[in-house]
């Protein structure tokens, strides 16, 4: 843990509502550290659509791997990938789902990805400025297609949010972002984006990607509907990726 880069914690990290002398909210920063320990997820928004991929960290052979805990459907046209404390994730994912439906009931239209992210960011911010609560220990990538096209948004424990063309969070985030910076193009097709996502997860897994260790969901710009890739589809993509990579 890189504690040395922080000012001496001391009295400024006991209550979240207190700023340190150099203007930092330590609890919020510590929450971001939790995110960095989470299994890697990434999102890519391109002309072909949006791809969300996750590293499936299996801690035990007894685990039922059909249980979803990294990538969630929020509405027909939006998905989310999370990194950090899964218990916190479920709360915000449920809230996002409710917001998406409530927006439909109020305005008879699908919610824009940016607006949804903003609402969730507002909840996260509330938990950094309230007595007796702690910040959410998760970052979420919201990916979807709305009237503005393919959109990818990131939000962190402070409630801040940013739009990205492609981004990765979690333990392998830094390494994947390097790769995304080099290889992302706006005009990627959906297939190419999926293959790029697989390449990224492969990097995180030190070259050992296989269908059990990765989860992928797509929102194609043709259908605008969220769809999880099945086991066979992922296997096909992985074979394609390995062939192209000469493995």
């Amino acid at each position, binding site marked *: 843990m890189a504690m040395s880069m922080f000012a001496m914690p001391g009295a400024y990290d006991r209550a979240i509502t207190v700023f340190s002398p150099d203007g930092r909210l330590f609890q919020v920063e510590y929450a971001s550290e939790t995110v960095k320990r989470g299994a890697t997820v990434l999102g890519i928004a391109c002309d072909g659509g949006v791809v969300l991929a996750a590293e499936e960290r299996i801690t035990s052979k007894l685990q039922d791997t059909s249980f*979803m805990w990294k990538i*969630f*459907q*929020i*509405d*027909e046209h939006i998905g989310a990938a999370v990194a950090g404390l899964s218990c916190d994730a479920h709360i915000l994912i*449920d809230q996002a*789902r*409710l917001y998406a*439906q*409530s927006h*439909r*009931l109020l305005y008879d239209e699908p919610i824009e990805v940016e607006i949804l992210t903003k609402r969730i960011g507002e909840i996260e911010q509330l938990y950094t400025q309230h007595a007796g609560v702690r910040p959410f220990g998760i970052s979420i990538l919201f990916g979807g297609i709305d009237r503005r096209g393919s959109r990818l948004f990131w939000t962190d424990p402070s409630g801040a949010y940013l739009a990205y063309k492609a981004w990765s969070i979690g333990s392998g985030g830094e390494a994947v972002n390097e790769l995304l910076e080099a290889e992302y193009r706006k005009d990627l097709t959906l297939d190419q984006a999926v293959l790029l996502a697989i390449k990224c997860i492969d990097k995180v897994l030190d070259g050992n990607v296989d269908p059990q260790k990765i989860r992928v969901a797509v929102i194609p710009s043709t259908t605008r509907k969220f769809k999880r890739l099945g086991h066979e589809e992922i296997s096909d993509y992985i074979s394609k990726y390995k062939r192209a990579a000469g493995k």
Partner: protein
Amino acid sequence: MEAWHAYGRDGRISDMILKGTTTIGVVCRDGVIMATDTRATMGYFVAHKRAKKVFSIDDHLGMTIAGAVADAQTVVEILRANAKLYKYEKGTPMPTRSAARLTANILFSSRFYPLLLQAIVGGVDGEGPKLFALDPLGSLTEERCVSTGSGSPIAYGVLEAEFKDGMGTAEAIPIVVKAIDSAMKRDSASGDSFDIAVITKEGYRELSEKEKKGLLA
């Protein structure tokens, strides 16, 4: 939604109420058929000739409405939102039985100031094709063949004579069309045209104008 008003026979303004209507739901071997007329009346005034009275709730669920349009549309929207939330959280589509129960609960929770809605909820799920009828106070009964509204006695006449349990949708569709058509002819509060939706394991589908014309010939 604009307010529709007209003077009823007693001189009072009446709101858009679909008591005058015919709706039909039947369970077939391979799916459910739900049909409605499209006339909306306010007293003797035809307020709307193409009123939508059958809705998809999800890909595998449908609902017909009769009663106050505002109440019905609100319940349809709430049901749609809940069907989605159920699907995302549980990972499987909402069973027909559960959708019907949810609707009944919404209606019963307004027991003392009722929502003026009479509904038929139908769909195809893991247990096969199912149909449920609900009254405005929230009663819930499972049905094989049901009709609601002022045209229902006439529709039942045709259905009792010709519909047989265990028919396939292909066989039953012309019978349902006959029933609606007869009701539209003899019930002044029903008419103008009809909508017919078929839900099979392939999903919810409303028949096109061309198909409907073919069936009436």
